[in-house]
């Protein structure tokens, strides 16, 4: 079977074949989907990072983006819906020399997996979390997600979504992520740089990719043409590096703020775990020296 497929391949190997399970191709993603581009950027970033390939693992949950783990030729784990981050947490802590990438969609990562996301960021587990945000549940045919814009149509919000979406980047930053960036699937170069930086950053790094889903999302929202959809995201995007991601809520009627928002340092979970267990820190809280009693403010 695989031999036959290999024969059918064109004589020119793809430059990323080295990191692909070519015997699993063709992939399941729809024409015009942004995941392929995002995946390609991840592979380029992995090569650029120069981290030995044996030391890199990819962990995913369920959904279209979750299938990335099935196509990458590395140690790869396709887990349960929403649980990529806790699985990756165990993987990383048991094998700290490894570099662990989590690839996940918006529903997987921030609906069913939302609790794990905030706690992994708080603990600063050394993971690179890549979220392909296509604003809906693509694999199940386009249902409302925690990223679906207010008013956008999905199969479970047929008149329009009555809910406000999360600002993923602001959430990540608020929970303590040390690296936070957002790009569209057309910002290939900047996105690749961000993923490489995120991989090299010790701690919880988060990269969000605004990605077209013409089949399930664009079709119901008057942009059925894949190229038009990705251009729509790209044209409305404005780059605002280093701004507070709270200011970067996605506003489709106006502009879509992208950029690198957070790039900071903080001890990782393992750094802190080892520090505490060396018993070098004094007891908590420090009772000496005495601090001046603050003035009590009367509210109202």
């Amino acid at each position: 079977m695989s031999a036959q497929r290999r024969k059918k391949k064109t004589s020119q190997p793809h430059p990323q074949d080295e990191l692909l399970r070519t015997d699993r191709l063709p992939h399941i993603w729809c024409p015009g989907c942004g995941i392929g581009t995002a995946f390609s950027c991840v592979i380029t970033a992995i090569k650029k990072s120069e981290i030995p390939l044996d030391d890199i693992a990819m962990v995913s949950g369920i959904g279209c983006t979750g299938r990335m783990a099935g196509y990458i030729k590395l140690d790869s784990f396709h887990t349960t819906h929403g649980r990529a981050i806790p699985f990756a947490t165990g993987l990383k802590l048991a094998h700290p020399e490894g570099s662990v990438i989590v690839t996940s969609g918006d529903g997987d990562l921030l609906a069913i997996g939302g609790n794990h996301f905030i706690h992994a960021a708080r603990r600063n587990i050394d993971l690179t979390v890549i979220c392909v945000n296509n604003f809906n549940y693509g694999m199940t045919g386009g249902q409302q997600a925690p990223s679906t814009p207010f008013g956008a149509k999905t199969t479970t919000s047929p008149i329009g979504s009555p809910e406000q979406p999360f600002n993923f980047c602001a959430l990540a930053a608020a929970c303590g992520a040390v690296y936070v960036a957002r790009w569209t699937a057309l910002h290939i170069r900047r996105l690749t740089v961000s993923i490489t930086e995120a991989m090299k950053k010790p701690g919880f790094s988060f990269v969000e990719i605004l990605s077209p889903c013409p089949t399930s999302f664009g079709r119901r929202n008057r942009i059925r043409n894949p190229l038009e959809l990705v251009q729509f995201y790209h044209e409305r995007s404005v780059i605002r590096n280093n701004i507070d991601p709270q200011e970067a809520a996605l506003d489709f009627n106006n502009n879509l703020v992208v950029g690198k928002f957070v790039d900071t340092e903080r001890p990782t979970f393992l750094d802190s775990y080892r520090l505490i267990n060396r018993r070098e820190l004094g007891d908590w809280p420090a009772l000496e020296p005495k601090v001046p009693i603050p003035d009590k403010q009367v509210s109202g």
Partner: protein
Amino acid sequence: MSGQAVLTGIHFINGDEACCEGALAAGCRFFAGYPITPATEIAEGMSRRLPEVGGIYIQMEDELAAMAAVLGGSWGGAKAMTSTSGPGFSLMMENIGLGACTETPCVVCNVQRAGPSTGLPTLVGQADMMQARWGSHGDYEIIAISPSSPQEMFDFTIKAFNLAEQYRVPVMIMADEVVGHMTERVLIPPAKGIKIVNRKKPSISPKKYMPYKPDSDYVTPMANFGDGYHMHVTGLTHDERGYPVMDSATQEQMISRLVKKIRNNAEKIIDYDAYHIENADVVVVAYGISARSAKRAVMDARENGIKAGFIKLNTVWPFPEKLFNELAGNVKAMIMAEINMGQMVLELERCAAGQCLVRLVSHAGGAIIKPRSILEAIQATLKESS
């Protein structure tokens, strides 16, 4: 790394603490958990002990995460476990299924309390027995063992890790609140006297490695993250390469092996203790804390001239079918003593296949079964069968 993993000597500790020491002695170096009565002392013990031996303890945000992290820890190369009780056990079912499907060695200790839902958090129950076997969706097999004392909490935790590593399967320690909280003498032998089993590693090159191609014992060698095998691990139905294949033939191949791995090795896995079952008219069967009441009741019955025997199930899943099928032909009755409304008794009935009477002595939870209740059940059952 200042502490010793194996605290050789005689200790006076509770069952939960004994479970921690058993885990460390077995080589456990990763624990992800979430506090819950009456299993909290296991998490507390591991949080104190694991850093002493270079291991990692992490308290997760919930039991969904704890179980997922345990699987990740195992693929990271560590012997990994978690502990919980009913409500947490329910949440863990999702990833216990992933563990069964991806054949991930790991140990889950369920210190049972009475349920359903929040139930009786501080009081004993044995009503998660069927959940241990069937709790996650789909077809699969697991191994479950049931300790009756702090000493067995130590011994059986080691056994649980060895079975998990040998068969690449989640192994459940089905303890209960009384065994977890009772304090007794626990003997920890010298490290070199403890039998340790480690997972089979692949011996062939990464290019030839088929992560789900089994050896003759139905178990496949397991590469860990970082070993250079670049394997794919998925909860989707997968073929021997580990690749998802969505068809009924692959489903048949995968599931039948997951099931055969345990069923065809059942005789090697199953462990029980038998007392006076030769020439017995009635045999009492029990596990966990109920086994201690049952043993006492059987001794009392024999003093009263009743030919009673006793089987203590150390392995509860897989259930010892052959043993009870044969025994049922030689006795008048078998009685299951368990703290639930009738769970393992259904297995006993199935195995007896109508050859003898099968009766249940039980109540809904919150207290142990008194030996007197079992003795009365022995007398009533014998009367019924004659």
